[in-house]
């Protein structure tokens, strides 16, 4: 091989090696910077979550004896039993809070996207919903934990209802629906709120079941495929209990996703997020309702 050609080839090989080496170094640098950035963001998120929980707990511990005295804090040894007067004061306050808003959601979904769950806090949220005037409340987690422990949740809700709303708690009676096919767990005379416990089975699986039912009707020649429209499928999915679509979903946890919550029903649902449901206060719950009241739905127009 001619000498200039050999020199040329060696030079180009050196340049290629140099470029390759630079690229490797840069890849390591980028990865390092990325890891640092994510470490910082994770730290920020963890601190926010701790701060949220600790601050809520601190506020509860400080305010509870002095102001309302109604939170039965699991870490307190003293059981703070509110007097009848204070409970009725809360009840009236919450009811008037609800009336003061421009619009109130008819149905609120409580989406718990956290590993740790505290039934007392969820029960508080449900009771606040009822007190403020919400007619339908759903509780959901993407692993079906609440579905499997629905009686425990129900007990907790009834207990908190008694704690927070006192003597008039019978007025705020609750109908529990575990399953669209089941009869209500507790039959009451004057039903003011309906609580439903949901899991991913009520989402896509529900749509698949409705699809199979329709296909069976088509197979039996009771319907044609062209007969199906959005309204028909909607009424099939709503079932006999006919809960309205959730107007508002309160999502608790740092995961930014609906995690399979009623995909068909949330087409116009506002989604408001909180870092955690643990030690959630009424103030934050109500701030979400205020946010909902302020939002404008143009419905495509």
């Amino acid at each position, binding site marked *: 091989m001619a000498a200039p050609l050999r020199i040329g080839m060696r030079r180009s090989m050196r340049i290629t090696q140099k470029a390759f080496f630079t690229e490797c170094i840069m890849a390591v640098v980028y990865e390092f910077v990325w890891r640092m950035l994510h470490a910082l963001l994770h730290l920020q998120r963890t601190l926010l979550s701790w701060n949220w929980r600790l601050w809520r707990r601190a506020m509860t511990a400080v305010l509870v004896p002095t102001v309302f005295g109604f939170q039965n804090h699991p870490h307190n040894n003293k059981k703070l039993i509110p007097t009848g007067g204070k409970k009725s004061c809360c009840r009236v306050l919450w009811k008037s809070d609800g009336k003061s808003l421009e619009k109130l959601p008819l149905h609120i979904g409580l989406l718990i996207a956290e590993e740790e769950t505290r039934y007392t806090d969820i029960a508080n949220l449900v009771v606040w919903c009822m007190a403020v005037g919400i007619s339908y409340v759903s509780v959901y987690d993407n692993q079906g934990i609440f579905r499997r422990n629905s009686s425990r949740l129900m007990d907790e809700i009834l207990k908190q209802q008694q704690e927070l709303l006192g003597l008039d708690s019978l007025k705020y009676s609750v109908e529990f629906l575990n399953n669209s096919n089941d009869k209500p767990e507790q039959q009451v005379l004057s039903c003011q709120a309906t609580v439903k416990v949901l899991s991913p089975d009520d989402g*896509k699986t529900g749509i698949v079941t409705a699809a199979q039912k329709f296909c069976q009707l088509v197979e039996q020649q009771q319907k044609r495929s062209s007969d199906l429209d959005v309204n028909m499928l909607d009424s099939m999915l709503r079932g006999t209990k006919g809960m309205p679509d959730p107007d508002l979903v309160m999502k608790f946890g740092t995961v930014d996703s609906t995690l*399979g919550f009623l995909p068909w029903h949330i087409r116009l649902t506002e989604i408001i997020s909180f870092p955690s449901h643990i030690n959630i206060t009424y103030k934050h719950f109500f701030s979400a309702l205020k946010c909902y009241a302020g939002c404008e739905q143009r*419905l495509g127009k």
Partner: protein
Amino acid sequence: MSSTEQSKTKLNQTPTTQRMSWIHKGELTLIERLSANILKAGPMPKHVAFIMDGNRRYARKLHVERQQGHTQGFDKLAETLRWCLNLEIREVTVYAFSIENFKRAKDEVDGLMELARQKFSRLLDEQEDLEKHGVCIRVLGDLTLLPLDIQKLIAQAVLATKHHNKCFLNVCFAYTSRHEITNAVKEAAWGVEQGLIKPSDVSEFLLDECLYTNNSPDPDLLIRTSGEVRLSDFLLWQTTYSCLVFQSILWPEYSFWNLCEAILQYQLNHQALQKARDQHAEARVLQQLEADRCCAADLLQQTGLGKPVDPQLRQEALQKYTAEREERVHSFLTALQEKRDRFFTDLNKGFIASAKA
């Protein structure tokens, strides 16, 4: 200069040819490239969906015509597609026009249809560019609701780019998710009517394949601009385990940094969402197995062998049933794809015929 004035100046400076193009020409600045490289060290979304909200509010803010807002919105889409290509995000789905938007004032709807006419015609002029970048355009929605000439333009664009496979742009036009899901169930029912599948074959997987988005994976990331925090009937089925990012910026003001912020959010959620998705996939497999087992057991009973006790027999029946079901589903999906292709080719034939006339 206030941001409103800056936006107005930019509006007047952008050359018409660049404004019309579907994918902006141009590369990232050095800082943008560095940031992109840092982001790419972590998991990147392969499919991003955008709800491009805020065009009208932007127009009001700048005191210009609504139509200008929509045109700027399209321009921003072209820019965003360029950024996505630079970030190696190969698939983008956008919510261009909802069925609900037909409720708007006639002049606005007509203006949007005219914009669509211009853009899809322009697309046909840019075929070389699209081939060079390997861009496949799909239009998802109930296209029969659109004016016939737009349907034909769309058909041409879709057929012309059908075999490109480097990157994918899905434009949701005359679309709502509920219509899409209802249509998927109708297609499954059509399959039953044709004797291709049984009602018990209908599963989550089958409905996935009957949706308009059957050729795309579920979006990893959904971004909605203008501060609204709802899905507005967009990809409700497909985004159950997607990372949802709601940003308050108006769509025509969207920047590369907004996109980076959204991707960072995706990266923070990646592990948790992957875990949830995997759990759901496992549950789905078990559900299907259980359903197959029931059907196979029913079949054995029907063949008059009484209650099948022999586990070996049951296992064989299950395997046979599963294989047959998969075969049925496969032929149904092939027939469905042919039906869908015929819709576009028929439109295209009509287009060519009317062009020749």
